[in-house]
């Protein structure tokens, strides 16, 4: 009988992995104030152009970034919607650990009381 199940990764597990990389977070931060070209972003953080493009491709695959074409320019725009899935995952874990800690506390305190009783019995002649 299963009495517990851990939270599985978010449906879009790629989002999670995408933002767990510091460089990609830097790129998303760079887009926070408005859509920009890859070259713009690269100059911000001293990352190579091909490096930025590689990260932007991954970010658009998971939906965190959308591409707009304006003439010959490709601009990237931040889409923060997928980040709300991380909150769901975090909530699930926070709820699980909170519940487990309360159970652990109860058991630990029971053990502590037993230990005290055993000590007391030991002192009784």
């Amino acid at each position, binding site marked *: 009988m299963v009495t517990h199940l851990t939270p599985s990764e978010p449906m879009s597990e790629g989002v999670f992995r995408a933002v*767990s990389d510091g460089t990609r977070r830097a790129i998303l931060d760079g887009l926070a104030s408005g859509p920009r070209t890859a070259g713009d972003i690269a100059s911000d953080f001293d990352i190579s152009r091909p490096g930025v493009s590689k990260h932007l491709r991954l970010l658009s695959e998971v939906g965190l970034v959308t591409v707009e074409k304006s003439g010959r320019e490709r601009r990237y725009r931040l889409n923060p919607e997928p980040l709300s899935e991380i909150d769901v995952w975090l909530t699930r874990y926070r709820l699980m650990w909170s519940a487990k800690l309360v*159970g652990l506390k109860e058991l630990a305190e029971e053990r502590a009381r037993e230990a005290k009783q055993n000590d007391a019995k030991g002192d009784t002649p």
Partner: protein
Amino acid sequence: MTTVKPIVFEKTFELPAPPERVFRALTDAGELSRWFAEHADVGDQAGAPYKFWGRHTAHTLSERQADQAITAYEPNSSLAFDWTWGGVPTRVAISLSPSGDGTTVTVHHEADGAIGGHNLSEVNFVMLDFWCLSMGNLKHYITSGAPALLPDHSPGQGDVVCSIEIDAPRSIVWKLLTDPSELDRWIGQGAKIDLRVGGEYSYGWADQAEMQECECVGPRTILELDPERRLVHDWDYKGGSTHRTEWTLDPLGADRTRLTVRQIGAASETEFSGYTNGWGKFLLEVREIAEHDRRA
């Protein structure tokens, strides 16, 4: 159109106080805001509101999301309310019956879908954790005047951090984290532990036949070990990605311990020079900007 069967959860809890005391804690807004939710606004009959919300309530952070309403109200005996939880209609029925000097509380909760966008297969466990936490807090509140642990579900946090004070020395708390038979009493199902860095640390969940379908495995290996002070293990998914769980034990006097667990969602955080925003701060900032854009 197919009708979806509701997901049904039911569990009983024993509380060390008579039904009158328990009923009051469940139906007085002042009491509820001390042990159950950050905010509460409740009536005392069918049709009246039974609103609770705030940062301690998963998926019901704002008052706007709090639409709970009483459907049955029998003083010292039963309380039922409807609750749209995480976008899904749910129905709660709580009944109380005297049991010696205490009360047997039966919680019956039905949900018409996947609460908060969790996987459908997890809904039962979401409800299990929610009610075990809530009833554990109620028990602690009744006996000591305060809840045991109220989580903070405010959005924008990077990792999960939960912390609790325990009236037991570190040696006992450490034993509950490192002895397989003790682990089985609060989280394991056939736990296996080889207590050394690199050694196996398993809750035994994956071995359960029913778990073969599930994505998750739980911990596998010990990464750091500092007896009675710190334990770090990984946290695995069948999908292949690995996270980390850090346990720290801080003494609060000889017979009291603060236990903290931190679930880190990004095991391979590569820090990038020139950009020092941590994960949590990043999420908060991006979210603030997105909110601002939406309102503009």
